[in-house]
Structure formats: C-alpha cells, structure tokens
C-alpha cells in the first residue's frame, strides 16, 4: 500500500484545477519525485504539486494507492477526476467537481464538498461526512449523461438538482436537499433521509427517489399510485409507509417517488385518488 500525504502550504486564493491529484495519475508516476512534479493549475499558472503542497510519502510499496489531503482543499477542483482505483481521503473541506467522471476506487471526505460532486460518475464510491453543493452526480451542461454507476453518500445536506440526468447508481443524502432532486432522472436510486424544498423528480423519465422527511408539495405532473410499507433499496429495506407517486407524466416519465406518509400529512388528500 502506497500512501501519499498532501498538505496545502498556504491558503489558496484562486481556484486550483487539481485533476492531476488522482490515484491513477500518482500510480503511473510511481516515484514520489515524479508525483511532486505533477502539474496543477493555480488560477492561470501551471504549478507543480510540490510548489503548493507539502508532499510526503507515508508508506511505500504495493499496488493499492491512497492519497490523503489534510487541510482546506475547498479551492481544489476536479480532484480524483476519472480515477479508476485507489483511495482519496480529504481531512477537511473539498472543492468543486470532486470525483468527476470517476470509474472506480473510493473518495472519503471528512468535511464539506462543493458542487458537481461525482458528476458523470461511472463507478466507485464517494462518502462525505458534511454537506455537498448543488448538482451531486449530475451531467455536464447540455449532456444527458448523468451519473451511471457507483455510490455517493453525503451524511449532511445537499443543494439543488441532486442526481440531475442520473442514469444509474445510488445517491444517499443523510440531511436535507434543495429543490429539483432527481430532475431529468433516467434511472438509478436517490435516498433522501431529510426533507426536500420541493419539486422532486421534475421531468424524471425513470429511476426512484425515496424521501423520508417532508417534501412540501408534489408536482402536479405526478399521480399517486399506491401506498407501500417498505422501500427496497439494494439489500436494505427502508420501513415506510410511503406514498408512491408515478411520473413525471408531463414528460411521459415512468419514475417513482416514495414519500414518507407520516412526515407528509398534507398529502393525505391524494389517498382519494388511489384506485
């Protein structure tokens, strides 16, 4: 197991395009010296890793590679981009597009992360202890290729458009979410343990969203189907009862919303529509 520790040498002012920080890249570089010479962009100037991080090799040997970033990495962008294996651990806050286009491996963040967490992710696992920004697991602008595999777990809350254009895979949010969770969703599963600020599953075509907290109002383009006592997500079975809505009918969608019955009493009027 090779373990590399990166500690920012200063408080970053401008954004750092740091997609060079990825296990695949470091594994290819093999020796620490080469890792130190990897290039990142500090705003509009290329900079070697060593010029802005203290780079330390904690452990040497073996295939598996772990990168640890200690300190405030919130200005780092695209860390772990396209990684296929290995581990990144961030002790502190991480920035935008963390784990973008990830194919495998694990990212763990003990802190908050910026927007576009795991955008276009194909595989692997991301775990965030704090909050995430908007567009968790989403596609890039103009594309319909959102997250298509892997797992994202955010213990805290997340912003708007969680799982936008999601195709497959699993997103679990421990806290609340903003608006439009699952917008344009095509497949996969989103579990929200907290509440949503509304408009869940807008324009969704497929996939499932399970909300354990409050949802405010459900969009008029969803129609109630049934009440289910449990939602099966992977191995675990989340106890309900849930109102199950089908939609988004405005886009001929066949997705499902599982909304906790007990936490959303104002939705009871829908029960009259259940055949």
């Amino acid at each position, binding site marked *: 197991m090779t373990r590399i520790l990166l500690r920012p040498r200063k408080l970053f002012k401008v954004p750092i395009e740091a997609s060079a920080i990825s296990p695949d890249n470091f594994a290819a570089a093999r020796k620490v010296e080469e890792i130190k010479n990897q290039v990142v962009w500090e705003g509009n100037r290329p900079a070697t890793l060593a010029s802005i991080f203290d780079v330390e090799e904690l452990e040497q040997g073996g295939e598996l590679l772990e990168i640890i970033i200690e300190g405030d990495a919130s200005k780092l962008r695209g860390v772990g981009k396209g990684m296929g294996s290995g581990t990144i651990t961030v002790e502190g806050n991480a920035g935008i597009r963390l784990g973008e286009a990830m194919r495998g491996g694990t990212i763990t963040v003990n802190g908050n992360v910026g927007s576009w967490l795991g955008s276009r992710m194909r595989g692997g696992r991301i775990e965030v202890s704090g909050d995430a920004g908007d567009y968790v697991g989403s596609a*890039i602008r103009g*594309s319909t290729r959102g997250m298509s595999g892997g797992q994202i777990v955010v213990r805290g809350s997340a912003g708007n458009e969680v799982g936008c254009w999601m195709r497959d895979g699993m997103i679990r949010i421990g806290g609340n979410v903003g608006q439009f969770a699952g917008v344009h969703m095509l497949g996969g599963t989103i579990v929200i343990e907290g509440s949503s600020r509304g408009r869940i599953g807008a324009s969704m075509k497929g996939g499932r969203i399970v909300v354990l907290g409050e949802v405010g109002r459900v969009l008029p383009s969803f129609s109630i189907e049934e009440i289910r006592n449990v939602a099966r997500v992977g191995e675990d079975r989340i106890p309900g009862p849930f109102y199950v809505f089908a939609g988004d009918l405005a886009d001929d969608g066949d997705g499902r919303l599982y909304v906790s019955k007990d936490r959303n009493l104002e939705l009871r009027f829908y029960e009259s529509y259940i055949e």
Partner: protein
Amino acid sequence: MELLIKNGYVVDPANGIDCEKLDIAVRGGKIVEEVSSSAKILDASNMLVMPGGVDIHSHIAGSKTNLARVLRPEDHFRDFERRTALTRSGVGHSVPSTYTTGYRYARMGYTTVIEPATPPLKARHTHDELNDTPIIDKACFPLFGNNWHVMEYLKNGDLELCAAYLSWMLRATKGYAIKIVNPGGVEAWHWGGNVVGLDSEVPHFGITPREIVRGLCKVNKMLKLPHAIHVHPNNLGKPGNYLTTIKTMECVKDLAEGASIHITHCQFTSFKGEDWSTLRSGAQEIARYVNRNDHVTIDMGQIIFTATTTMTGDGPFEYILHQISGRKWVNKDVEAETGAGVVPVVYKRRSFVNATQWAIGLELALLIEDPWKVYLTTDHPNGGPFTAYPRVVSWLMSKRARERTMSRMNQSAARKTILQSLEREYSFEEIAIVTRAGTAKALGLKAKGHLGVGADADISIYRINPKEIDPSRDYRAVRKALRRAAYTVKDGQIVVKDGEIKEVVQGRTFWIDSRVPKDLEEKIHRELSKSFREYYTVGMENYFIGEGELARSSPIYVGEAKV
C-alpha cells in the same frame, strides 16, 4: 515574396495536368511563369501538389451555426484547442468556434469555403463570423426561396422587378449566389405547416415551389451570376423524395444554357420507398438523370458514422427530425424570409436508415460519370464534420475501404444497396476535381481551384507520392496524408507546414456587386423604401451592410443585368 515549389507531382485538372512533375512559381500571391533566383524554394519531391481545396457547402458561420454552438456545450467539451503564440484557442467537433474552423480547414489544405445558408436579415451576423474565420477565403449564399418580395414579384410575373430586387439584395447582404431551401415550405412552416411537393400552393401567396425555382433560375441568368441557383429541394429527408429532386432538376431544364441548377447535399434528397422501413437508395435514378442532362450539378452530403449536429434553413424538416429522435431542438423563424432548425444526431453503423444513407452518398459519387458534376461535401456538420473529408476520399478511392466499412454496418441495408457491386475507384485527378477544380468552376471563381498562370497562389501539398502509392490498397496512408497537409500556401504565403499553422492571414470575402439598368434600380429603391417597414421590423438603411463591415471585401463585378 517569391516562392518556387519544386519537383512536386502536380494534379491540376482544370489545366489538364495529371500527376506531372512540374515546378510552380509564385509571386505577389499569384501563380506566375517563373520567379527570380532569390525565390524561396519549397521542395515538394515525391509529394502530391494540388490547388487549395474549395468547399462548396459548409455551415461554418452565421446565426444558425451560433444557435448550434450555444445548444451543444457537450459537443465542445472534449474537443478543444489551446492558444499558442500564433493561434487563438477554441473548441471543435461538430460546431467548431470560428478560429478553430479556419485553422482546421487550412491544416487540411482547404483555402476557400462557402457558407451556404444566410438569412438576409441576419447577414451581418454571418459576415461578423466570417471576419473571425482566419486564413480561408469565403463567401455566403443568402436564402431567397421563401422571401416575401420574391414570391410576390414572381406571382405577379414582375420578373424584371424581381431581378432588380435580387440585385439590390446581393449588394445589401454582400452575398454571392441565390440559395433556395424547401421553397415555399418554410413559409408554410411559419404557420406550422409545410408544402407537399413542387406543385402544392404556398398558403397566402398563391405560388408553387416550381414557380419559385423557375423564377429564381431565370433571375439568376438575367443577373449573369457566376454560380447556378443552389437548391435544397422540397421533401428533404422524406422517403420517396428522389422523385421531387428529379422534378426540381427537370423544371428548369428548358431554361438551360450551361449549368442552371445545383442540387446540394443530394444524399438527403435521394430516398426511395414509402417509409423508413422500406427506405431504399434513389441514387441510381438521380445519377441517370444527371448523366443525361448537362444543366445540373450536385454535391454529395455524405454522412459519417459519428455524433454530429444537423442544421438547416428547412425548419419543418428539423422538427420532423426532433419528433423522430426525441433530441433537443432549436427552431428560429426569420421574418418575411426564411427559417432555421438545429437537432443533434448520431449516425449509427447498426441503423438500417443511417447505413442506407451512407451508401446513397457514395453511390451518387460513383454512379455519376462526369466528376465535374458532383462535389465532395458532408453538408458540414449535417452529415459529419468537415474534418472527415479524408475518410470520404478514402471511400471514393478504394473499394476495399468501402467494403471494410460496409462489413461493420447494418447488413440488411448493405444487401439492399448496389454499392457492393460498384468497382469504380476515383483517381487523384478525380479527387482534385470534386474537391477543388470542379467546385471552383461551379462557383465561377476563375482564380481558384487551378494552378494556371494568373490563378491565386492557393496550393495544398500532401506527403504522398501519387506515382507510387496504390490508393485502393493503401487508403489509410491517403487518409492520413490528406488530414494534415505537408504545406498549405495561401495567396503565396506558407500558412501550414506538417499540419501546423505557421502564419495567420485574413481571407477575402467574395460577394457579387450586381447591377441593373439605372431606371430599374431607382424604381426598386423607391418601392422598397416605401414598403420596407411593412415587411420588416428594421429599416432599409439598417438592413444594408456596408462594404467596410467586411474585414477583406472582394467584390465581383458581373456587368449589368440582361433585363
């Protein structure tokens, strides 16, 4: 600056030169008899030397192209170019930014490109973009097939006034030729409809597409325009439309002396069959007609198996494409003139329809005997990006290349086309005709597409020896060489070396400075000044584009119209 290109194998069909070892002398941006001893020597030994490429139909600039750029950030995301000391940064693939467009054409040895679909009301936008498209010379074709003034003059039989109007419009828009797209159909689309064929009436205008095409063909002759009317027929993209294409060619036959109609991106209008499942190639019938009639030229509109973007003035067709594919759709109607539509597309090998379309394009080029009547285009980016031209060349020059691609495409489509049986393989001379000499001739650009004395010194040199290589077998080597020119010379300056930009120059914008007799000119000016604001939301004085708005204006005088 004097240049002497030595020992190259020159292919210059317009001057009857086919793979002869000759020297080419260049001075002051022109090809000359000979140069002094102080001329810079460019050793083209064992290399193919041809005139700079002339692309007759490529959507590279204007409001429609920009609508597509804004629609497709995901298309730019993977294909970008970093800035260098000499070149600007940009994005590529199916809707490249303007700088990247100019550099990529020059790298491929192309030196003149036509933007074929300009809404007159927004011609200023097209010229804004052409000014920012480096190195290549260019021109644009304003759209007239659904223009209210044109339809009214032709309906009332005022052919002279129509000619005077077109003459004013070419000067107002700084345009080069008359472009017709789905005549009458786009006007019907402004109510959500379309026209069914050549003889259905345009709502509220009481005129038929046939009358529009014939009228504009007559006006084209009256104004003595260098290029024939450039026509995108009705029913494009509809199974069974090959008949409409033949009728469209036929309906101007009697007006002919010399080429009088050019059918553009003919692949999309050569469909037989009733619906998509019974789609067949109509290339044989179209080719038979073109072989028998000398008033027609066409360009291929070849498709490439790739993801790209369709964009055309044919609003109703793009809506149909949206309904079929379900992909995002942009429509932009232009008041009193034309329309535009943009829909992304993916041409798949496994698709029966796409595989048939692929075969149709090549069948047209292989079945039409006279290479001076058919030109190589992909209707960029509708069929595929222009950077795929070398691949189309390899299919034309090598039966083996065709077979290899056919073996990996929908076999039901492969069986139902005759492409399998076509043995013909293009020579370098024929390739030079369909990509330079033929297109320049059709456009009437006398100083382009050939290397005779007096021609513009636009030259492309490729690192293949036409004498030794067997394109049929080594089609990959041909393709590779044509992708990145060993040298591209523009107006006598070396702008590209081994596919790298060496110098950035500003290309010309050609336009027709058309004139009609004084009295007619005053009459049309009076009429337009009175009624302009009834037709448009802008004034006549703000519609007209001044010559100063072109970065390097190059007007062409064609003498006063014969009215």
